[in-house]
C-alpha cells in the first residue's frame, strides 16, 4: 500500500507499517536519533508514533538509502509518512481545544491572517492618524511613536505574543502527554545538555555527518545551514528587540536608534540571516526530489517561510525609509506582518520547533534511562 495523503487513520496505519519495516531493518540507524528510539520499541503504538514522527527532522537520507522505497513492493517512504503524522499532530494538539481537528494546514490561512493584520492596522491608522502625520517626515527619538503611539504598538505586540506563547505552551503540554509517560528519575543535567546540543546543532538534520540527501543522491549540508541562518537570524532579531526594550525602559533612549547602535546592528544581522535562510530553504524545497515529500504539507512550510521573509524584508524597508515620508506606511506594514506572524505561530508550521524540541528532550531522557539501566560490563 503506497503512502497517500488521506484520512488520519490511513496516515497512522501507513506510518506504523513503515516503522515496523524500518525496525526490522535498522540499516539507517547511523542517520539520526529516530532509529535508535525505534529500536527500543517492540511495537509502535500511537504515542510512540507521535514521538517518532516529531523526532524525524525530515532530512530524507533514509528515503534515498532505502532498499524498500518505491518502486519496491513495500513502498516504504518514512519521511513522507512521518511528515503527514506530524501535521496531524499539530492539528490534534491545537489550543484552544475547540480548534482541534478543525484547522487546515494549507498555509493560505496564515498568509491571509498576516495580510489582514496589515490591512486592519493600516485602516485604523488612516482613521485615527492625521494624514500629515502619517505621511510626514519624522526624525529623532520617538519618531515611530508619532505615527503609532508606543502604548498601542507595545500593547498590540504584547497581546499577540502572549496569546502565541500561551497557545504554543498548552499545545506542547498536550503533545508531551500524548507521547505517553516519560522515563522517571533520569539525570536532568545531561538530558538538558543533550537536548540543547541537538536543537542548537540540528545534528539530526546532518544525515549522520554525510549531509541531507538532495536530488539524485547528492549529499550536502545546505538545508541544515539555511535552517541555522534562519533560526539564529530570528534569535538575533529577538535579542535586538530585547536590547531596544532595555534602552527604552532603563536608559530612556527612544527608537529609532542610529545605524551603528546595538539594536540596529543585531537586527540587521538577524534580518539578513532570515532572508538568506528563508530564501535558501524555499529554493531547496523547490528543487528537492518530490519522492519523499507530501504535497499536503508544503503549503504550510512555504507560508511560514513567506511570513518570516516578509518580516525581515519589511524591517529592512523600514530601516531604509525611516528618514523619508514613507516611514509611516512602512512602519504599518512591518508592524502588521509581525503581528500576523505572532498571531498565527500556534496554528502553522512553526509548531514543528517546540514539538521537535519536546521529542528531542524525550529521546534524550530515554537514552539516559537506557544508559542508567544498562548492566555495567
Amino acid at each position, binding site marked *: 500500500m503506497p503512502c497517500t495523503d488521506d484520512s488520519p487513520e490511513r496516515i497512522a496505519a501507513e506510518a506504523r507499517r513503515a516503522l*515496523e519495516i524500518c525496525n526490522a531493518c535498522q540499516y539507517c540507524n547511523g542517520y539520526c536519533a529516530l532509529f535508535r528510539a525505534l529500536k527500543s520499541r*517492540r511495537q509502535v503504538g500511537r504515542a510512540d508514533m507521535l514521538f517518532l514522527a516529531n523526532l524525524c527532522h525530515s532530512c530524507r537520507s533514509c528515503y*534515498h*538509502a532505502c532498499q524498500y522505497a518505491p518502486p519496491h*513492493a513495500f513502498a516504504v517512504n518514512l519521511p513522507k509518512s512521518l511528515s503527514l503524522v506530524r501535521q496531524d499532530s499539530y492539528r490534534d494538539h491545537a489550543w484552544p481545544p475547540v480548534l482541534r481537528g478543525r484547522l487546515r494546514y494549507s498555509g493560505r490561512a496564515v498568509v491571509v491572517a498576516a495580510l489582514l493584520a496589515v490591512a486592519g492596522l493600516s485602516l485604523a491608522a488612516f482613521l485615527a492618524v492625521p494624514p500629515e502625520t502619517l505621511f510626514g517626515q519624522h526624525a529623532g527619538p520617538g519618531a515611530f511613536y508619532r505615527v503609532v503611539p508606543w502604548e498601542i504598538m507595545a500593547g498590540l505586540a504584547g497581546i499577540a505574543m502572549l496569546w502565541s506563547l500561551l497557545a504554543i505552551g498548552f499545545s506542547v503540554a498536550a503533545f508531551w502527554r500524548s507521547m505517553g509517560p516519560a522515563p522517571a528519575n533520569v539525570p536532568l543535567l545531561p538530558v538538558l545538555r543533550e537536548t540543547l546540543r541537538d536543537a542548537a546543532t540540528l545534528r539530526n538534520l546532518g544525515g549522520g555527518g554525510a549531509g541531507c540527501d538532495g536530488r539524485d*543522491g547528492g549529499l550536502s549540508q545546505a538545508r541544515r545551514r539555511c535552517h541555522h541562518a534562519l533560526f539564529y537570524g530570528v534569535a538575533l532579531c529577538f535579542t535586538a528587540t530585547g536590547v531596544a526594550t532595555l534602552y527604552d525602559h532603563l536608559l530612556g533612549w527612544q527608537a529609532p536608534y542610529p545605524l551603528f547602535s546595538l539594536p540596529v546592528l543585531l537586527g540587521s544581522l538577524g534580518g539578513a540571516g532570515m532572508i538568506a535562510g528563508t530564501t535558501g530553504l524555499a529554493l531547496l524545497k523547490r528543487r528537492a526530489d518530490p519522492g519523499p515529500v507530501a504535497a499536503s504539507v508544503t503549503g504550510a512550510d512555504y507560508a511560514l517561510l513567506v511570513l518570516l521573509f516578509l518580516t525581515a524584508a519589511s524591517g529592512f524597508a523600514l530601516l531604509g525609509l525611516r528618514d523619508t515620508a514613507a516611514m509611516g506606511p512602512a512602519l504599518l506594514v512591518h508592524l502588521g506582518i509581525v503581528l500576523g506572524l505572532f498571531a498565527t505561530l500556534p496554528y502553522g508550521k512553526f509548531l514543528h520547533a517546540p514539538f521537535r524540541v519536546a521529542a528531542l528532550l524525550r529521546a534524550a531522557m530515554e537514552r539516559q534511562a537506557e544508559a542508567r539501566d544498562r548492566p555495567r560490563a
Partner: protein
Amino acid sequence: MTSAPRDCDVLVIGGGNAGLCAAISARRSGAAVTLLESAPKALRGGNARHSRNFRVMHDGPTPWLQGRYPAQDYWSDLEAVTDGAADEGLARLLIAESAGIVDWMGGNGVRFQSGADDALPYSRKTAFFLGGGKALVNALYATAEALGITIHYDSEACALHAKDGLPSVTVRHPKAMRVIRTRAVVVASGGFQADRGWLRDRWGDVADRFVIRGTPHATGAMLKALLEDGAQPVGTAGHCHMVAVDSRSPGFDAGIVTRLDGIAHGIVVDRDGRRFADEGSHTGPTRFSAWGDRVARCPGAVAFSIFDSAIETRFRPSIFPAVRADGIGELAVQLGIDPAALEATVTGFNAAIGGDGSAMAIQPPKTRLATPIRVPPFGAYPMRAGVTSTCLGVRVDGQARVLREDGRAMEGVFAAGVIMAPNILGRGYLAGSAMSIGAVFGRIAGREAAAYALH
C-alpha cells in the same frame, strides 16, 4: 593486440558492488569503461542493495572498527564455515586485501558508521556502511558517473562470445538488442538464484517455494555462458546460502526484513505437525542461516514457528501479523496442519521439558530455551527458505582471470563477486564476507582487465 574497432576497453557485466568496484578500478587505471546493469535505475545494485557491512582484517582499532581482527582469525573463521573447502591462496589474498577496503570505499564516496556507535551491534570483524547497501550503491554510481564510466541500465547481457580473446557481449535492452565489442570483460553478474528452472533442476519442485531475498536479475545467464565456454566450475550447484523467512515475504528483493527473529524461542514443526530439529541449537547470529537449509529440506519446503503469548514477548515480531488462535488445534487448522498431530507434538514437547531450560527427553531434543507452550492465544509464523545466493561459480586465479578446465586463463575474461565467491565460500557463510569478496576481487578484476586491454 589487434586493432579491430572496439566499443570500450573494459566492459563490466553487472552493476552490483563487485561490478561497480571493477568499473571504478578499471577507469582509474585509465581504461574506457562501460557498465551494464540489468535492473532499472531505481532498483540498481544487485544484492548489494540489501547488504550492510564488509568483513575486514585489521591489526588495531580504527574509527570504523573496534579491537583487532588479525589475518589468522579471519582465516580460521573462513576455514570453519567452509569445512576447509576454500581455495587457500584466494582466501589469503581476500584477507590481505580486505584491510584496504574501507579506505578505498571512502575514497569513492562511501561513508561508514563509527565502530563505537552503540546503535550497532559490537563488531570487531565488520565495518558497517552508513545507511546500508543502497547508500553504498548510490555513492559508487555517483563516483562512476563522475569518472566518466558509461552506464547502461535495463541492459541484460544475454550472450558472451569470448573465444578469440576479443570478447563481445549481446545485450538485451527493452528498446533493442545490440552487440558490444570490448577488449576485456569483467563478469560480475552474481549467482543464478533468480532462475527458477535452474533451481528446480537441483532441488526439485520445492524450489518453487523458495523466496529469493535479492534481485530478480540474478539469472545466472553469464555463469551459464562461461561454463558452456569451458570455464572451470567451483562450489556446489545444489547448495545455496539461505535463511528462514516469513513465507508471506515478496518473491524477490525483500532483503533482511522478512527474516524471522524468534525461531529459537518456540518450536518449529513441518506441514505434518512434527518437530524435526533442535530449535535451541543456534541462538546467536547463525540462527538465521541454520534454519534456511532445514526449512528447504522439509516436506514441501515449508515449516511453522509456533509460540504462545508468553514466549512471544522474548523476540521481535515478524513484519507480518502472526496467525493466532486460542487453542493449538484451532491454530493447526488455520495453518493447514492436522490438529491432532500438532496437539500431540505440543503436549509431548511440554511434557519433555526439564528444569534446566532444555527438553532432552524427546526426539529431536531441544537443548536450550525450552519453555512450555501453554499460554493462549497461541501464535505461528509460516516459514520458507529464503535464498541469498547460489554457490556455483567459475574458477579464477589471483588476477581474477577466469580459468578453463585445463587451468589456462580465458583470454580477456575476468570475474568478480558472487560469480567467483564459491572459490572461497563454496559452502558456509560469514557475515560481510561476500561484500568483501566483491570489493577485493572487483578492484583486482578492474585493474587487471584495464592492464590487459591497454597493454
